[in-house]
């Protein structure tokens, strides 16, 4: 009897806690390792060593894979990379595939996080990212463009450049399938470190809306100075 009561109390506590969490998703509490890494001066020599771990999936160029299994990291502002790495390490963002590689034992402490994030930001971007199927001139492209202007510009910027100060990611040049997956997870509450403002903003998006807007984002032209000269470019740090 006593045990049953205890179990009941435990269940209620769990319920209350999870409701509290759902109402106040810890999108960016900061603190801890994130703040520590943000305040450190990056060491790019060490970054080359650290990044080799990441390269197993994200490739030495940081371009990820065109099919969107692994996102492009190149060009992502350091603050965003620090936040996401810190979140994955602290289990605030579910990423079971990446989790072991994000751990301190694999890449090192806050200094390494700062190092690798600064390194990623400086990598030239993939000139041939994975794109949605609708080219400019199609009605789907136009629909996506409108959706983007009405819903996304305020945070992600007029050409998807993001906002490093607010930890909003750069999304131009990102692979279509990767963005589609993240967008869906954010909309459906599966990405726990999502910004609650974005969850609200896209709550009414249908699957078609989602595809249209991501198609548009995947086709925003990336400024030439941010791109690698060609798809043949290879990261010289790993010659």
């Amino acid at each position, binding site marked *: 009897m006593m045990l049953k009561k205890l179990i009941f109390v435990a269940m209620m506590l769990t319920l209350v806690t999870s409701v509290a969490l759902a109402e106040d998703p810890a999108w960016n509490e900061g603190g801890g390792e994130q703040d520590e890494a943000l305040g450190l001066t990056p060491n790019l020599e060490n970054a080359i060593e650290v990044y080799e771990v990441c390269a197993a999936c994200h490739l030495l160029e940081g371009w990820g894979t065109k099919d969107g*299994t692994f996102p492009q990291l190149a060009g992502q502002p350091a603050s965003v990379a620090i936040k996401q790495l810190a979140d994955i390490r602290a289990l605030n963002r579910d990423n*079971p*595939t990446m*989790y072991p*590689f994000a751990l301190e034992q694999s890449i090192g402490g806050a200094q390494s996080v700062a190092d690798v994030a600064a390194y990623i930001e400086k990598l030239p971007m993939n000139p041939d990212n994975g794109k949605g199927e609708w080219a400019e001139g199609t009605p789907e492209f136009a629909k996506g463009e409108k959706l983007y202007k009405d819903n996304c510009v305020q945070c992600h910027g007029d050409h998807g450049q993001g906002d490093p100060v607010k930890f909003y990611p750069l999304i131009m040049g990102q692979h279509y399938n990767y963005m589609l997956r993240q967008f869906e997870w954010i909309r459906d509450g599966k990405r726990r470190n999502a910004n609650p403002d974005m969850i609200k903003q896209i709550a009414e998006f249908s699957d078609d809306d989602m595809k249209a807007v991501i198609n548009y984002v995947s086709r925003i032209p990336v400024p030439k100075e941010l791109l690698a000269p060609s798809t043949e470019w290879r990261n010289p740090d790993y010659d």
Partner: protein
Amino acid sequence: MKRNLKIVQLCVLVLGVASLASCSGGDREERLTKIRGVHGADEVGRGYVEVIPLSPGAQLYRDKTCNTCHGDDGIKGLLPSYPVIARQGEEYALQQMKDIQSGSRANGQSAAMKAVVQDITEEEMIILAEYIANELGGDAPIGTGVVDPESPGAVLFRTKTCTACHGKDAKSPILPTYPRIAGHTPEYVIQQMTDIKSGDRANSMAVMGMKGIMHLVTEEEIALLAEYISTVPR
């Protein structure tokens, strides 16, 4: 000098024991000793063979009938679709026993193990896992050892990011809760990869991590990978 004398003494002793055993034993005893092997015998103390008592892990391995399916050496299982468990990582082995007992892992042949592990306590599982990782199989070879680093499976093993988690040698996983896969049978590997891809096996975050990339390999590639993995020594 002193050392040499000791070696001579030792040789004499060994020879003496051996001859004693051979004259007083007879065929039956010899066979029994052979069958019972290093684990010693149930009925001994006849004066010529010193019984090595089983370690707690080895005792449990037999008492809980693990050997029935996984083999006395943990290498040659009853069916090729059973895993080679000798020298498996301790934490991974423990996690699998727990997950099979709880039912969170029930894919393929592991469903058959559920009934067998029902009465094993967590303390016993810890002892078993330690035994499996460190003692079981001794240094008997695992994996066919005929490794071709340029075979299609070997190339896939590198290009499909398998090495990132399981290690270049397929036995140095990035986390202790990830398995050593070198030397598994092709049948077992195919079953696991197929089940992880389909979601039939979804126990633990480690497995979910692998599911995230399984769309990168086709059925044919899974077979090639399995073939290669079975050649790698553990």
